[in-house]
């Protein structure tokens, strides 16, 4: 075990620094935007570190991708892949899934 703060806590410290000290001092629109993108990146990293280990569905990715390209599309491909992509989105952008509810 590493000493505290652990990886998640370090990300949180950097997030707070960017949000509370760097962002309010940006007058340039471009820098403001880039700071928000950086905050988004930290959010993704935090959610990934706190998430359950990737489930087994994801391990057959390469084989499934090859089958589909060859035109051999499994009958349940759409619901199966939706679940797989939704799992990625719960880490990268949970709010995005709300558009589909």
């Amino acid at each position, binding site marked *: 075990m590493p000493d505290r703060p652990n990886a998640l806590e370090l990300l949180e410290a950097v997030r707070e620094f960017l949000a509370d000290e760097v962002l309010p001092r940006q007058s340039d629109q471009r820098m403001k935007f880039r700071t928000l*993108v950086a905050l988004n990146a930290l959010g993704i990293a935090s959610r990934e570190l706190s998430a359950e280990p990737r489930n087994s569905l994801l391990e057959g*990715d390469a084989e*499934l991708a090859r089958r589909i390209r060859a035109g051999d*599309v499994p009958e349940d491909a759409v619901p199966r892949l939706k679940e797989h992509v939704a799992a990625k989105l719960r880490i990268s952008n949970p709010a*995005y899934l709300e558009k589909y509810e």
Partner: protein
Amino acid sequence: MIPDWLAELGAERAQLLPGGASKEAWAVDVDGQQLLLRRAGGSVIHQGTLTLAQEFEVLRAAHAAGVKVPRPIAYYPELGGREAFAMERVQGETIGRRIVREPPPGLPVQMAEELAKIHAIPRERLPFLVELDPVERMRRELDGVDEPHPAIELGLTWAAERLRRDRAPVVTHGDWRIGNLVVTERGLGHVLDWEFAHVADPAEDVAWPLVRAWRFGADERRLGGVGDVEPYLERYVELTGADVTLDELYVWEVLGNAKWAVGCLTQARRHLDGLDRSVELAVLGRIAAEMEYELLDLIGRA
């Protein structure tokens, strides 16, 4: 501070605008003229994009065809060690999020009229433009990413089985969407960003602004967040005589989502491979999943 190579042009004022590392954009004033100078950057340019010399030729051809583009001024094979071209610097809004807040009501029909003019540009005038199979091109780019993406593969396979292949190809803009159009309160001002021009089925351009990512949050307006698809398609068909249908646009919309997903992945690779280090490009690698979900949803509802 004006660099020497711009001072030699007689620049009175010059400002480097924020943008990508592969191509620079400078706002330059020369003899009271307001110019925009595009110049090669230090980094390797994206695969599948035109050189600045070619982009300038496309701009000239579009201008000659009566398309609303910034007036092309001059091409410079060597400006401070790199190629560049100058065009008129135009005024108006290009930020998608701001345009969709209050889009001018005439914009969809104006988009159709401009696109019809683009698709009438004589192909012989631009012999360097290549014709590419859209599905094969994306599969090749996806292979370059070297990471399995079964959802994108499904989008490509699904679309490949449904695409028409019998329509005569035309000169296409290649990135026809809100964000690459200058919009004023009167509507469409100018068409920008010609570096992805190629030869393809015109339906590819027609459908590209329908992709959800290019609605900039205004999801209920399917045409680029600015309006309905029907009046846009009707006007386009009326002007060109091309028998593009709504069903066909749906297939191209699925393909468009696959294309932008692949685009995000390849841009993230530019960061990972050290060609263009940037947190914005890095994050795109994780945004691709949004297009994957959208294309699965479209296929599920077809």
